[in-house]
């Protein structure tokens, strides 16, 4: 039995973050879920959120996730999301700007799937960047 769990945050363009962690909190379609070491194999869909990874050295790593997938197996968590970004790399101003733009489009009546998706993604990024800012 291991007391840490391997975490990989994978986006379509590369691995956004990887390392050993004590716990992972992410939001699935059913609600928030916390994963501790030696969790049973698990698969669920993710909704856009700011996921938290508690690293072995006690830091809280915030990752902004888009819709995707969480898969747990062999004491390994894979957070798969087409657009995953570590909060520290997100520029809060740019993210807020993007959110405002998405919001404006929503208010203008563009309620198609793509705009909604964009809005939620921007929301997750802003949230992640704010959380990371508070921590620092």
């Amino acid at each position, binding site marked *: 039995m291991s007391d840490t769990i391997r975490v990989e945050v*994978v986006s379509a*363009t*590369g691995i956004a973050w990887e390392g050993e962690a004590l716990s992972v909190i992410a939001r699935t379609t059913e609600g928030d879920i916390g994963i501790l070491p030696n969790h049973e194999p698990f*698969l669920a869909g993710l909704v856009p959120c700011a996921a938290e990874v508690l690293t072995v050295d006690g830091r809280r790593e915030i990752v902004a996730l888009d819709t995707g997938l969480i898969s747990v197996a062999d004491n390994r968590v894979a957070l798969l999301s087409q657009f995953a970004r570590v909060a520290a790399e997100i520029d809060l101003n740019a993210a807020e700007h993007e959110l405002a733009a998405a919001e404006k489009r929503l208010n203008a009546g563009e309620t198609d799937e793509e705009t909604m998706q964009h809005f939620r993604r921007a929301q997750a990024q802003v949230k992640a960047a704010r959380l990371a800012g508070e921590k620092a």
Partner: protein
Amino acid sequence: MGASLRELRQRRQSVMATKKITRAMELIASSRIVKAQQAAARALPFTRELNRAVSAVAEYSRLDHPLTNHHENPKRVAIFFITSDRGMNGAYSSNVIKAVSRFVQRLREEGKEPVRYVVGRKGIGYTQFRGLPVEASWEGFSDSPTYDDAIEIGDRLVADFLRPTEEGGVDEIWAVYTRMESMISQTARVRRVLPLEVVEGVKDIGDHDLVPEYWFEPDPETVLDRLLPVYVRSRIWFYLLQSAASQLASQQRAMKSATDNAQQLIERLTREANQARQAEITQEISEIVGGASALAEQE
């Protein structure tokens, strides 16, 4: 004689200019290929994780999902193929097109109707010239695709796949892309994207013989629903990146041999020009000598 000397020199100049261009293109391709290969390598973890997840769901749920269901009698088959936007790539695009034609031939023999989806101006030009129907085409990103391109293509393919055949949908989706085996070898490949080849995914897991029993939340169907469109996008993304790297490798090789050929041509033309110059001088001398001796005889 003077005219031929000038002509030879002019030709040599022109070949030298061409050589400069092909040499520059070779260098550009070889610098970009590194980037393309890195991009392809970065996309691998995502593809690998998705394969693992898809095979886990498929293995343990035994579902009837529209994306995994085999049509008993496929009528319309989508062929998605990736060519380049520009020439100067050696046989890159024509290899893909040849593979597509062979595949179309096979489909017709089986009584299926091919539906073409094209990426790249070369492929679009080919189909237009022959008046072949094209369902959808994309261009402008063949050597540096972005994930957004993959999303657009993937979503279009999935949408057509889910539509009933009678309303213009397709029953199967095949992709023809160029796999980057190495810098010197790239081969056109035909692969089925949908319905899923689930068995293939299980083998990909490799280091584990058994896929562990998974807990699905809320249930396997919902997870698979969310998973499969992403999976198709990631396949397309993988094919686009592989093709982009292959295209650049092919371009680099083509431009290298063009440069070498130009160099040979320059050497040959230089020799011919020198010979012509020598011949001209010899002739002038013999004319002078001949003239002088004629004068001497008169005296």
